[in-house]
């Protein structure tokens, strides 16, 4: 199988601070890949490099076999990359429906249309309602986002990423800050994702994350310490020492 994401010798420095050091990462199609490591290990930086929000200092990234090291975030999204953010990054003043419609429009030629109404676009609204329905938020479609709960916002983030019909999904701590009940909702949602979609996830909830992951990469101070199958990484003493330990 060919790699959906291939990261080679990737480095990123902010001034004198090296946050990503010669990282190599290879993720196959349909794989559930977990990134773990202590705080400040450079997990989110690696996500930002893969998504295109940051430019690497050196090294290369390819997405679905295409070199994207110098491509913009938008171009990578058009190729089939979608992501969620660690901190909720949504359109707070707009309705849930509006949020999903923006997500749907991002990959449709409609985004270049300068006439007609966005609010009253029937095709877009219908599809957006379906998306909201699939994550159990259809009854709140018209609610302004800021009036929904944190758990609902996280669900919406995932729904918006999935609405884009991605080939690769980057999930940055989808469970962080959620109640037990909400965690279950999201876990069920994650399990239900089409198995052909490749997922890379950063998550600290080991119970959920380990059950989810096929392969795991352990990062520490920007370096890949360990990469392998779930069993290999869990069994390795370094995982315990660096991450699970203390």
């Amino acid at each position, binding site marked *: 199988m060919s790699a959906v994401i291939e990261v080679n010798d990737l480095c990123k420095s902010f001034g004198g601070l090296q946050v990503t050091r010669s990282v190599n990462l290879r993720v196959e199609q349909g794989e559930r890949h977990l990134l773990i490591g202590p705080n400040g290990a450079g997990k989110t930086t690696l996500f930002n490099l893969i*998504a*295109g*929000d940051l430019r690497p200092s050196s090294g290369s990234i390819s997405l679905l076999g295409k070199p994207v090291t110098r491509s*913009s*975030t*938008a171009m990578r*999204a*058009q190729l089939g990359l*979608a*992501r969620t*953010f660690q901190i909720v*990054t*949504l*359109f*707070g*003043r*707009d309705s849930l*429906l*509006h949020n999903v*419609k*923006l*997500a749907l*429009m*991002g*990959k449709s030629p*409609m*985004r*270049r*249309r*300068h*006439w*007609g*109404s*966005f*609010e*009253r*676009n*029937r*095709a877009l*609204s*219908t599809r957006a*309602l379906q998306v909201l329905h699939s994550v159990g938020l259809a*009854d*709140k*479609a*018209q*609610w*302004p986002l800021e*009036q929904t709960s944190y758990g609902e916002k996280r669900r919406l983030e995932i729904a*918006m990423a999935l609405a*884009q019909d991605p080939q690769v999904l980057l999930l940055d701590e989808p469970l962080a800050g959620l109640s037990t009940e909400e965690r279950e909702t999201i876990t069920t949602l994650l399990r239900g994702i089409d198995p052909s979609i490749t997922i890379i996830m950063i998550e600290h909830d080991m119970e959920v994350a380990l059950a989810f992951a096929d392969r795991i990469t352990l990062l520490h101070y920007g370096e890949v310490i360990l990469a392998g199958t779930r069993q290999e990484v869990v069994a390795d003493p370094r995982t315990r020492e660096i991450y699970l330990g203390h």
Partner: protein
Amino acid sequence: MKRALLAAFIVVLLFLPQLTGGVYYTNLASQALIAALFALSLNLLVGYAGLVSLGHAGYLGLAAYSFGWLMTHLGWGHLAAAVAALAVTTVMAGIFGLIALRAAGISFLMITLALGQILWGLAYRWSSVTGGDNGISGLTRPSPFGIDLGNPNNFYYFTLVVFLLVWAAIANWVRSPYGASIRGTKDQPRRMSALGYNVWLIRWTTFIVSGFLGGVAGLMYVYYNQFISPHSLSLANSAEMLLMVIAGGAGTLSGPVVGAALVVLLKNVASAYIDRWIMLLGLVFIFIVMFVPGGIVAGLSRLRRPRLPAGAGPEKTPAESAPAVEKTA
């Protein structure tokens, strides 16, 4: 309700010369409409794209000086000079956008301020072209279809037509799918790129459209005054346009119009009674910023709709809020 207000507003505008019955007031209304054109064009950038610019008077100057120079130095006709002036302004907006959009936030503001000041400096110093401090005078108004715009009433209606056209165009644009993406880049630029939108291109397009419409307003300005001098490009003028937008309500369709009317009225009416009318203007702005930070229009609509008690949820129930969809998709 909104439609009724809009209709009433347009009717008042249509009969304004008859209602006020005086050249002074008709000219005042023309001035207010021209100021509103500036505010509307700047609002695209400030209110919808979230890019606060302090160089908008530059477009006024570019359009007005290009027009004046082409007419007085090259002897071009009205139509050709107007079209060329708009073209020059639009191209320049494109170039300015390339420079200014390398930054965002306060840096963007500083760059637009600098670009505006460069134009002002050129108008002031490049005397062989601009006439320096004296500006370019002796310009005339066009006579489209044989209608003499030298007549204040005719000119008012001409301005009204341009104003309504620009207003309708902007209203249509901001509610279009593209308009939704412009507002998206204001609120969450990072999310917008992650969703596949070219945020830079969206901002640049908005910047150019804003500049072009600023040029349209600049043409109307020079038609009205039949004179252009460096003063019109000054930072004070740019700041005044920005204040119109913010005072009226950035990111709304009616806000900039209300703000422009307020400033023009204060300027002309208050200055007849008080010498220090600028101080009065300042006080009004301080009042607005302190008590209705969203602008006059936002403040008024808040008065009409009482606030919900905390935690009451949205005002609509899901049943009655099924998405409004067009019959023909």
